[in-house]
C-alpha cells in the first residue's frame, strides 16, 4: 500500500491526486444512497480505501453499517433486482486494475463480474439456485467468460470442487445444492466464484450461516486459495474473530462511514476509536484465563436516514462529553492519522485516546 497523507477531501480520507491509482483496487469517496418513501437511506456515505493483490482487507461493522452495500457497489449489483423501485444512487470512484467501474459501460462491468471480481455470499443455500446442480451452476459461471464446450467446463468444475475439498467431486458435481451440507455448499460456492481465477474476491459474511466447526475450515480454505491464486480479498463480517484470522488490514465501518482503518495488529492492539473499543469489548476471548462479563456497545445502530449530527457514534459513545464545546454533536470528525498507515475519526486527542485505551479499556479485555 502506498504511503498516503491526509488531505482536505470531503470525507477527510486520503485521496491521491493522480487519477489512475497504483493500488489494484481503490475506492474513493464511495456513496450509495437508496431513495425511499421515508427519506434517503445513506447506506454508504463517503468511503475510501485501497487494496493490493495478495492482501486481505477485513471490513467490520454492525448490521446496517454499510458493509454489504459497499461490496455490492463494487460488484455493480447495488441496483440489481430493483425493478420499478427508485434506483439507488451511487457516486465516487471505484478503480479496479486501472478501470473506473462507476463510469464504465455497464456491459463491460458485467463482463468483469465473475471473471475479474467474484463474490461469495453469506448463505450458500439461498445463494445457489435450488433447481440446478452444483455442476451446472459452476459450468455456467465458467462458460460465460470462457468459450469452451460443456465437457471441458465440467472437467473444470470437477477440478475446482476437488480443489476446495469436496470428496468424490466427479460424483458430487451432479448433486443439487440441497443434497450438500452447509459447509459443502459454501465450498461449492467458493469453487464457483474462483472458477475464473478472479483477481478480486469479495466474501460477504462467508461463515455466518455455518456451524462453528465448519467456519474455521472455510476460513482456512479462503486463506489457502488466496495464497494460491494471489487475489485481493475483501472479507466482510461482523465477527472480529474472522478478520483476526484472515485480514492484513481492517476497516471499521459505522453508519456508512469508516471510523478506523489500519493494519490488523494495530486495530486489534492499539485501536484508536471508541467504537472499535466497543467491538473488542463485546468479543468473547477464549485465550484469556479470566473472563469478565462481555461489555456490549450500548444503544442501537444509527438510522441511516437520520444519521446523528456531529460524530455518528456520539449517542452511544461513553466519552462523547470529553471533547470541548459539544464538538462531538456538531462537527463530523474526519479520519486522521494516528500512527503509521493507521487512521481514526474521533474528536478526542490522540494522547487522550491512547491513555483511555491503555488505562481503562485494555486491562478489562
Amino acid at each position, binding site marked *: 500500500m502506498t504511503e498516503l497523507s491526509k488531505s482536505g477531501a470531503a470525507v477527510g480520507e486520503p485521496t491521491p491526486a493522480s487519477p489512475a491509482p497504483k493500488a489494484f483496487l481503490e475506492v474513493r469517496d464511495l456513496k450509495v444512497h437508496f431513495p425511499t418513501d421515508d427519506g434517503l437511506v445513506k447506506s454508504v456515505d463517503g468511503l475510501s480505501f485501497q487494496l493490493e493483490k495478495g492482501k486481505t482487507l477485513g471490513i467490520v461493522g454492525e448490521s446496517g453499517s454499510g458493509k454489504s452495500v459497499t461490496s455490492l457497489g463494487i460488484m455493480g449489483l447495488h441496483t440489481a433486482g430493483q425493478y420499478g*423501485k427508485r434506483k439507488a444512487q451511487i457516486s465516487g470512484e471505484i478503480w479496479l486494475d486501472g478501470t473506473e467501474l462507476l463510469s464504465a459501460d455497464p456491459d463491460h462491468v458485467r463482463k468483469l463480474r465473475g471473471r475479474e471480481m467474484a463474490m461469495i455470499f453469506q448463505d450458500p443455500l439461498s445463494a445457489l439456485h435450488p433447481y440446478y*446442480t452444483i455442476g451446472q451452476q459452476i459450468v455456467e459461471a465458467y462458460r460465460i467468460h470462457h468459450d469452451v464446450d460443456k465437457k471441458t467446463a465440467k472437467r473444470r468444475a470437477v477440478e475446482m470442487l476437488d480443489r476446495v475439498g469436496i470428496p468424490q467431486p466427479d460424483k458430487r458435481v451432479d448433486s443439487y445444492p440441497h443434497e450438500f451440507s452447509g459447509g459443502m455448499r459454501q465450498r461449492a460456492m467458493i469453487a464457483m466464484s474462483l472458477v475464473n481465477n478472479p483477481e478480486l474476491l469479495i466474501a460477504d459474511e462467508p461463515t455466518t450461516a455455518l456451524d462453528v466447526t465448519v467456519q474455521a475450515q472455510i476460513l482456512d480454505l479462503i486463506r489457502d486459495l488466496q495464497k494460491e491464486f494471489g487475489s485481493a480479498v475483501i472479507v466482510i463480517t461482523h465477527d472480529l474473530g474472522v478478520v483476526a484470522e484472515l485480514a492484513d488490514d481492517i476497516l471499521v465501518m459505522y453508519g456508512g462511514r469508516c471510523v478506523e482503518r489500519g493494519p490488523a495488529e494495530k486495530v486489534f492492539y492499539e485501536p484508536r476509536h471508541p467504537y472499535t473499543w466497543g467491538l473488542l469489548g463485546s468479543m468473547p476471548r477464549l485465550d484469556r484465563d479470566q473472563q469478565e462479563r462481555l461489555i456490549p456497545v450500548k444503544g442501537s445502530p444509527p438510522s441511516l436516514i437520520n444519521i446523528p449530527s456531529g460524530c455518528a457514534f456520539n449517542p452511544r459513545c461513553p466519552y462523547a462529553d470529553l471533547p470541548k464545546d459539544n464538538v462531538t454533536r456538531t462537527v463530523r470528525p474526519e479520519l486522521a492519522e494516528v500512527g503509521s498507515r493507521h487512521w481514526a475519526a474521533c474528536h478526542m486527542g490522540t494522547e487522550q485516546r491512547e491513555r483511555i485505551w491503555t488505562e481503562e479499556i485494555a486491562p478489562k479485555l
Partner: protein
Amino acid sequence: MLAYLIRRFFAAAVMLVVIVMVVFGIFFLIPKWAGVDIALSFVGKQADPAAVEGVREKLGLGDPIYAQVWEFFKGIFAGRTYTGGGDTIHCAAPCFGYSFRSEQAVWPVLTDRFPVTLALALGAAVLWLIMGVSAGVLSALKRGSLWDRGAMVVALSGVSLPIYFTGMLALSIFVYGLDLFDGQFHPLEEGFSGWFGGMILPWVTLAFLYAAMYARITRATMLEILGEDYIRTARAKGLKETTVIGKHAMRSTMTPLLTMLGMDLGALIGGAILTETAFSLPGLGQAVLNAIKNQDLPIILGVTLVTSVAVLVANLVVDILYAVIDPRVRLT
C-alpha cells in the same frame, strides 16, 4: 419413481371407484328418497304400468343399491345386457348405460363430445399461458410503470368479467358486427380451417379470463423470485440480464403456474359449461347442462366420471412435472 407412479395410479383407481359410488349413490338414491320413480322418468309420464315395470326390471332398479353399483361397474369393463319387459339389449363395454331422454348409449355421447371440450381447454390453455405469462413477466420487470398498471387493470377486468359477458361481446363484435366468423362449430373432420375459425373466439374468450389470473400470479411470483439471493448470484457471475430473467428466474416462476395449470385444465375438461353454452359448442359441458335440465342421470354420471378421470390425470401429470422442475421434490 416407478414405485411412485404405480402407487399414484393405484390411488387414482381407488379414488375413481369412490367417486363412482358416491355419484351413483347421490343420483340414484335422491330420486328414491324424493319419491320420484326413475323408471317412470325413463318411460315418460303417461306410460302404462306394464311398460314401467318392464323398464324397472330391465334397469335392475328393484335390486339393492350395491347390486346396481356392481352392475354399473361391470358394464364399464365387460359390457352389460339389459333384459326385461320382453326384449333384450346388449350394451358393449365400456357401457355407461342409456340416456333417459334420447335413449342413446352414453359412451358414444361422451366420445363425441370429449374431443370438443379437450380442444377448447388445450387451445385456450396455450393462449392464456402465452398471454398471461408474458404480460406478468413484463409487468414485474416494469413494476409501477404505465404498462404495469394498464396490464393489471386489464387483468382485473379479465378476472371480474364473466364469460357470458365477454363471450357475448366477442360474438356481437366479431360475428354479428364484423362478420369475421360464422359463429358456428364445425367438426374437425370437415376441414381444419372451418374448425379453427369456429374455435378461435371460444379460445380467446376463455383464455382472456385465465390469462388475467395467470398474469397476476406470474407478476407476483416473478417479483418475489427477483429478490432471491440466487438471482443476485446469477448476476454476480456476470450473466446477461436476459439470461438471469429468462433462465434463472423463469425456472422458479414456473412451479406455481404449473400447479394452477393442472387444476384449471382438469376443471375445464370437466366442462367449460359457460363457454360452450355461449358459443354453442357441442362439448361435455353443454351435454351435462342439458342432462341436468332433463334429469338425465346416466349422462350426468358419465360426464362426472370423465371429469374425475381428467382431474386425476391432470394432477398426476402436474406432480410428475413438478418433480422434473424442482429436484427437491422427491417422488417416493
